[in-house]
């Protein structure tokens, strides 16, 4: 019983979400645009959490559901109990990375997020050409967007070089003190 409660109280401590408030009305799953692509929809995920067992938590951390959540917040907007599922998803994704329980579907999504953050860490602002190049390198999807990119260039939508940003030192510091610090704690 102790261990059971521990799983939920950790989540509540970090997100403020009380999973026991969910009474399984299913509005979140009905409104979720990607529910049909998920291993299980958000209301089912809530029920798994309510059981409080490690086994069910692992099922969630191993699932594609947490990665396919777009944080569109439709579930939160419609939840009669105002349960912040998107915030919980952020927490569950972090846990899934930390415990190395990634579903194969998470790979391109994570690769994109990592490429995105690398880009702003180095240049302060998003450098789209660098982002897509890094993403291709991470996923070996070399043919990605070969049809779209030349049109973007012709329409003046692509910068060939990063934008000028001066406060790079502080940007490095922000990354060092947050995401890189968290990685170190984890090792």
């Amino acid at each position, binding site marked *: 019983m102790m261990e059971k409660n521990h799983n939920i109280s950790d989540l509540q401590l970090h997100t403020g979400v009380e999973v026991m408030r969910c009474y399984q009305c299913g509005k979140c799953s009905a409104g979720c645009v990607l529910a049909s692509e998920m291993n299980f929809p958000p209301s089912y995920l809530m029920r798994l959490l309510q059981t409080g067992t490690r086994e069910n938590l692992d099922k969630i951390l191993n699932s594609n559901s947490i990665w396919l959540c777009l944080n569109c917040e439709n579930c939160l907007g419609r939840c009669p109990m105002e349960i912040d599922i998107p915030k919980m998803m952020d927490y569950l994704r972090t846990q899934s990375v930390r415990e190395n329980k990634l579903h194969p579907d998470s790979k391109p999504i994570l690769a994109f997020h990592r490429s995105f953050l690398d880009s*702003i860490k180095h240049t302060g602002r*998003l450098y789209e050409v660098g982002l897509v190049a890094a993403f291709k390198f991470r996923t070996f999807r070399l043919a990605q967007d070969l049809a779209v990119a030349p049109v973007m260039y012709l329409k003046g939508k692509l910068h060939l070089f990063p934008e000028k940003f001066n406060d790079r030192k502080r940007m490095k510091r922000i990354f060092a003190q947050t995401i890189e610090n968290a990685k170190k704690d984890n090792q």
Partner: protein
Amino acid sequence: MKIGYYPGCSLTGSSREYNESVVALAKALEIELVEIKDWNCCGATAAHVMNEELSLSLPARIMATAEEQGLTEVVVPCAACYNRLKMTQHELKDDDKRGRVTEILKMPYQGSLNIINVLQMLDVYGAENIKARVTSPFAHKVACYYGCLLVRPHSILQFDRVEDPQSMDSLIRVIGGSPMDWAFKTECCGAGFSVSRTDLVAKLSGNILKDAADRGAEAVVVACPMCQSNLDMRRGAINKTLVQPIDIPVIYITQAIGMALGIGATELGLKRHFVNVEL
């Protein structure tokens, strides 16, 4: 009227026509936009998916810089940036989080800025003033598409109605257009999956466009660069999922108003779209 301006990364790159139309419209309405000096990326979806402190520190640096510059109100045209800035302001009302973030930044942060989106800026300026300047009424039937990030979560953003928002629809009426009732006003287009899961974006954006087209929309009007690029730039991928290809354009509200005010197509960036704008 003078107001702070945070364009954000999309508006300097793949969605530069949004920036061009915001700037051209502000000029026409005599609103002076003061850009935040040396602004950085807000971190977007990537930061809050990967690390909470990072997702708060990046927008906090932007807002601390604006405060240092003496700005009191900042308009943020990108719905994703607008959402991140507002959410950060909300989270940093917590003393512990604010303490930690100011320690990371080594910058003072008051949290006093009024962060507004483009629709709010136009509202502050006044519908009557816009109406008085219309030279060629925008006589088109359109679907106003708000997406997720402008309206949710309502408890924090406190902007418009969460299920059936009306602010863009009202502006379209002001310039002589006919906004229509439709079912996908606030459904998600697939947002940040544009590169990583283009297949899902094609499916979700296809559903949105199909409903708009089936009801006879001549165009979809948006106020978010992610919505625009998914519905426009991804049209090739979208049409592969549909039986009947859809060719209606996707324009920004600032472009629609600009057209009604007689601003030229090039100045409004109307030639940068993938789907030709012939309205």
